[in-house]
């Protein structure tokens, strides 16, 4: 009961913040509300029993990625009210297609016969660790390599050119 209420509260928060993210003309506001979305999602993970994932979410997404976003925004945008829509695609068309997609998904979700027999309530860290290091070891290692590569790549791309300021 408690979790349900909590769930609904968190959900509400997520929805609201998402709306702000999508519709706000102010880019900073947008970034920060996205930050809030991330936190909300982390809470959601916690409610659903994946505490470890929630922490990971906070650490990486909020602490890393969103900070990166903020830095990027600081570097590049003029902090003023720029129109959110571009010239060729208006709000309407985008709205239609998004709505269409949303409705389709809703339709599927509501009418799919989910069978809730096996509920994994306990998703302990041990289980996670065991699986990730045996069944999915290659992925784990791969991820490491990818991170390294992207690190190098990002630095290379963003490096100031010779003779340039």
């Amino acid at each position, binding site marked *: 009961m408690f979790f349900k209420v909590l769930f609904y509260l968190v959900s509400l928060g997520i929805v609201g913040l998402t709306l702000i993210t999508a519709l706000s003309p102010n880019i900073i506001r947008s970034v920060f509300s996205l930050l809030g979305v991330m936190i909300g999602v982390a809470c959601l993970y916690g409610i659903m029993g994946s505490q470890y994932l929630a922490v990971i979410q906070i650490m990486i997404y909020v602490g890393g990625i969103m900070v990166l976003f903020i830095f990027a925004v600081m570097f590049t945008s003029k902090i003023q009210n720029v129109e959110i829509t*571009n010239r*060729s*695609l208006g709000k309407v*068309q*985008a709205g239609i*297609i998004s709505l*269409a*997609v949303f409705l*389709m998904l809703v339709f599927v979700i509501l009418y799919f016969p989910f069978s809730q027999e096996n509920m994994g309530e306990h998703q302990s860290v041990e289980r996670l660790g065991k699986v990730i290091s045996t069944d999915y070891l290659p992925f784990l290692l791969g991820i490491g390599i990818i991170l390294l590569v992207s690190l190098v790549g990002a630095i290379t791309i963003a490096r100031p050119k010779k003779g340039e300021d």
Partner: protein
Amino acid sequence: MEYLLLLIPILPLVGSMINGTIGYFIQKRYGGEVNGIIATSTISISFLIAVYLFISLLNQPVEDRKILLNLYNWVFAGSLSVDFELIMDPLSALMVLVVSGVGALIHLYSIGYMHSDKSQWRYFSYLNLFAFSMLILVMADNLLLMFVGWEGVGLCSYLLIGFWYQDIDKAVAGMKAFITNRVGDFGFLIGLFFLIAGIRMVEGEGGVVSLSFGYLREISERLSGVHFGSFGLLTIVGLLFFVGATGKSAQIPLYVWLPDAMAGPTPVSALIHAATMVTAGVYMIARLNFLYVYSPLALTVVAVVGALTALYAATMGFAQTDIKKVLAYSTISQLGFMFAAVGSAAFSSGVFHLMTHAFFKACLFLGAGSVIHAMSGEQDIRKMGGLKNRIPRTYYTFLIASLAIAGVPGLSGFFSKDEILYRSFMSAYGFMGVWGYIVFFLLIVAALCTAFYMFRLVFITFYGSEVRAGEEVVHHIHESPRSMTSVLIALSALSVIGGYVGLPEIFGVHSGLEGFLSPVFEESSRILNVPSSHTAEWIIMLLSVGAAVVGIYGAYRIYYINGYDGAKPIRERIAPVHYIVENKYFVDEIYNLVVIDTVKIFSYLLSQFDKYVIDGIVNLAGRITVVFADLDGIIDKYIVDGLVNIVAQGIKFIGERMRGLQTGRIQDYVYIMVSGGFLGLILIRVLIYFMNR
């Protein structure tokens, strides 16, 4: 032995081929005389063979005097079957002897006469070719083969008349001969078609039509029953064949080519236009006697036309001043006599006169050639005279021949002409009625005229003390070489003795010639049943002698006593008449106007038609094609190219519109991707839904 028959015409043909192909080189290397020798030898050998065959014929009994040689079946077309068949019967034997004998003499004469000519090889080739054609003509055993020879001699006549073709007048004379001849041949052909039609009617559907003389003789009686409308077949055929004869043998109305034919070398005139080719018409009628006897009408026409021609042509001799032209008209006149003879059903008489005429006319022509040769080419008798003692051999032979043609008793011409006069008179009591009298009268007067103009010629040409030509010419006068004078002598001798083969019955002997020819003519004569009368024969003989005497005396009075221009006072008195006669009654001019100008107008009209109408149509077609081509060009340019351009532009248009999709903005692409994906999913769902139904 029959193959000897083939040899007779083939030898001259071979000679003609030799001279025609390598003759030029022979002449260049060895001289023209060799060409002449080649030509003369071929025809002389033919003559000898003919003599041999003639003798062997005489050794046969009268009914059997016939040698046939059938070489092969020449024409085989439907029901018409014609063979290449040669015959030697009394008539053809006689003709062959005359043609090859006189022909050989003339070939010999030509060697001397043409000795300075550049193209002797051509001359002798043509001459031999003529001999070949003429021999085929007289030796053919059917009408078609005879017609081949008929055409062949016409061709050679053209070739030889126009021998010196570099002179346009001479070439034109050759053409005139050929074309006039052709007109006659056209009539002949129509007659031939009628004959074939008639034979088919008689023979019925399945029968074979042959044109051989033996066959025709057999069915002649049946043919006489065939009629086209109110005209008998044989009358039509006879008249049409006679049209051909008038062309070939220079009778009214197709004689006009003969005087102009004097443009050819004199030996040619002697051979072709005196002795042989022109007699083809007479021979033809004689050969077809069994057809003609069934048509008294045709015979009458032949006789009347012949007699008219005889007198008409004789009058021309009064005013002509070219020695050869006088002889030309004389030939036409004598041919008229021959036709009058055969027209009176006196076939053997006609052939007899043919033979004697060949002798003395050839002699006269060759003598004229000799005179011309002596006078360095002069042919106008007003510029001659005084030649009697200067070229004696020529003079004496000429004189003898003139006496013969005038009908002086004792010489050949007298016998043959007399027979014609008698027979034509008697035909009045046979089938010709009053026409017979008319014919006889015309002939008597013509005989008188003949004597007159011939001796006019003799007196003007040879008599007088002075030669009326320039110094140069007179100085050059000389007798002709042996090769020429020997021929003259031979011919004049024949002119004398040639008549004794045909002595009339009143002298108590049977005419040898008539007897000889009887197998050919006997039957026909019996059909027509012309009576005979010794009394009439004597009277007529006297009359003909009288005519000859009067004629000669008249010429003597005018031209000997009064000199060469003794006719001057007479001429002045009848100036208009003389003018007409001198200009040959303006017949040539009339023909020119009536016939030739008409043809010219017609051909001009046709050429204009061709130029404007036909060429116009062609040009129009051309222009229409151009219009269509332009149209095609336009179509191609605008429609075809247009289509191509439209396609290209359409694609360009679509491309440009499509370009708008490539905005370069990622968001637009994302939009498309999302929409596409979304729609795809919907589609799959729908498909699944329908598949599960």
